[in-house]
């Protein structure tokens, strides 16, 4: 019989590791499902955000790091804002993505890490994301022509939601320093 408790006990080391990396006190979760209820990408995830928390509590490291859920989170922070126990699942998902990359586990969603990469590079360049250059970067990296996103893209462009030229933040030097510091810490 397959159980999550192979050795007759739950493996708490994964919970401890995630707790340290994310700083989130996951033990407090009482599964009210407020996070999943408000998550815009939960319907597309293979594991719902509340279940991600539960599976970490139960030591299911492999299942969690191999899931699409950790890559589909868009860090909108709805979960963390609403959580009655102050658990920020966005921060948690970030930590899980890092852990998956370190373990060499490929992202379950095709090209998604390239999308993340394009996003980060866009922020590095201007201090904030610029959609048009970011998407061009992504298309070049992935060779994904994003055919099904074309029509919504055009609509957004016509509404003026995609400015053609990037705008930069004032503190470009600070942005540079942040990136340097982060890569050093790694």
């Amino acid at each position: 019989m397959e159980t999550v408790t192979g050795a007759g006990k739950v493996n708490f080391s994964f919970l401890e590791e995630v707790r340290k990396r994310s700083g989130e006190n996951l033990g407090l979760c009482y599964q009210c499902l407020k996070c999943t209820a408000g998550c815009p990408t939960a319907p597309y995830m293979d594991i719902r955000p509340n279940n991600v928390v539960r599976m970490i509590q139960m030591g299911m490291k492999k299942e969690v790091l191999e899931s699409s859920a950790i890559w589909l989170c868009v860090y909108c922070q709805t979960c963390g804002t609403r959580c009655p126990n102050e658990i920020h699942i966005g921060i948690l998902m970030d930590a899980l993505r890092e852990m998956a990359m370190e373990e060499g586990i490929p992202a379950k969603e095709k090209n998604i890490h390239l999308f993340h990469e394009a996003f980060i590079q866009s922020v590095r360049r201007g201090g904030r994301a610029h959609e048009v250059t970011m998407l061009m970067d992504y298309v070049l990296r992935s060779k994904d022509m994003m055919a099904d996103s074309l029509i919504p893209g055009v609509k957004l462009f016509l509404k003026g939601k995609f400015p053609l030229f990037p705008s930069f933040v004032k503190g470009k030097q600070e942005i540079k320093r942040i990136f340097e510091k982060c890569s050093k810490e790694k």
Partner: protein
Amino acid sequence: MRKLGVFICHCGVNIAGTVDVKSVAEKMAGTEDIAHSTDYIYMCSEPGQQIIREAVREKKLGGVVVACCSPNMHENTFRKAVKSQGLNPYLCEIANIREQCSWVHQKDKGEATRKAEEIIRATLEKVRRNESLEAIAVAIDRKVLVVGGGIAGITASLDLVEGGYKVILLERESALGGHMAQLSRTFPDFDPAFSGILSKASEVEKHPRIDLHCYSELEEAKGYVGNFELVIRKKATSVDGRKCTGCGLCVENCPVEYISEFERGMGLRKAMDTYYASSIPNKPAIDREHCRYFSDGSCHRCEEVCPEKAVDLKQEDGRIEEKVGAIVVATGYDLYPKEQLGEYGYGQIPDVIDGLAFERMLSPSGPTKGKILRPSDGKVPKEMVFIQCVASRDPDRYMPYCSRVCCMYTAKHAAIYKEQVPDGQPYIFYMDIRSDCKGYEEFLQKTVEEKGLLYLRGRVSRVFQDDGRVRVLGVDTLTGKMVEVAADMVVLATAMVPSRGVKDLAAKLRATVDRHGFLTEAHIKLYPVESSTKGIYLAGCGQSPKDISDTVSQASATASKIQALLSADKLLQDPLIAFVDEGICSGCGICVEICPYEAREMESRRGVSIVHSALCQGCGACIASCPNNACELRNGSSGQVLRMVDTFVA
């Protein structure tokens, strides 16, 4: 001829929405002896009552019918209203046209209106022949019997004596304290339970107005509210309480040891012993079932060593007669018997214990002096499983109800365990977490946050022994995965059930119990501390499972209810009871046999049956069984009832 008044209530739309109240009021006005007939939106409101009072006064009414809701709701209201105008309250009757008419016939307004008319006409027939009656005044005995010396009985007793009343407190065991004396620390504040209960118990022991009888049971109870007559059996302790100084020499020298019930099977006690160490009162008693003197006469050690000559092996059970005005039943609970919990290995696997046994383990005065050690080999358990809802919330096989304290005490157990064994891991299997009192939810979340408990949502399917460990098989329904924990020790939060012997006691007191044996209250919301038998009051887990806070609240509520009862000079009782036409009574005695309240008695001198007015509840059993129609009910005579039936069938 009496002039009568009819008052029809709309009850908002409750009645008027279905019954054409205006037309009914008009039709009633046409009858010859009806001097007043009217309707109003809410008769029970102050302006509504004013309409009744004015009509009684101005039209000099000799009888009133109020057509409204059930008499349970407002009979008293309207009887008081007519009484204020000098009309005998028993000449006011309720015609129930809400529960028995408008509510049940909402789809047929025409028929509902016709039925309302008939109900009112029938009630008018009754009022035409009602007698003016006076409430029966009965003397009250101002003492109270409290059965049970746990926290419920102790609290009720102390509250009652503070109010100036006398209390007789009965405790089955040889010392006070009940289950609270077994507990370690209590939720939600980790307060030590033992010292808490002992300080209350010593107050009881010293109080001049509390007559404490330990090792005693209620043998007989007769009588009624205000006037109960009791027989108390004081079981022989074989120790003269007046001579005994509690030195403990007899206990030390007693050669017989057996498994202690107080220690939940984890410790030993002597045949001559106190109920628990430093008990209150601190006097030992001989358990004659285990004592060698009483089995074969071979041992007199205790008698020999006692410096005060207090041991009395020839002592016999005592019999005390008492009279009290009210009785508090505070008989408490037991945990579900382990013999019937096979799937949890309870009773077969030594390292599977119940919540109270774990309390004894955590208690500094317990068998392990407060250390958490496996019963099988005395090792410190590193993987610890707690299982909630064992035999609770299981209507098919065990108990359907929630035992209410287990969620909280399990969290407390796991927290104390983690305090003592920081490298240990507690697992808690649960169905739901119920933490519904002040500070409980916060307590629970705090223990989870600080102690790292793992809650697993799902019932355990099996507990079995394997390689020196206790394997617990279950499922975590939140991930849908099977879980198997190789535990060192398992604590079961077993269901609370009424303590043994409650059914017998309830029968003696003519109080009712539910199908599980919990005493039933008169009304779950409005009269939660009164039994449906007048003069019997409830406190603590004998009524339903509850924690210490709720038990203390209920015990205090009970005490203040009783103080209100006993503060009157006389008890007033409804006079709607049976009476006998002695000219017809043949003295056959059938009524005496059939009366459930012992209210009927043969008067041998005159050869007729009489009614004890204070005992009669007006149930009508004697009236139905009387072969000569010699018995009748006041204001409910056969003549009245037949005339009421006539109006319906005419």
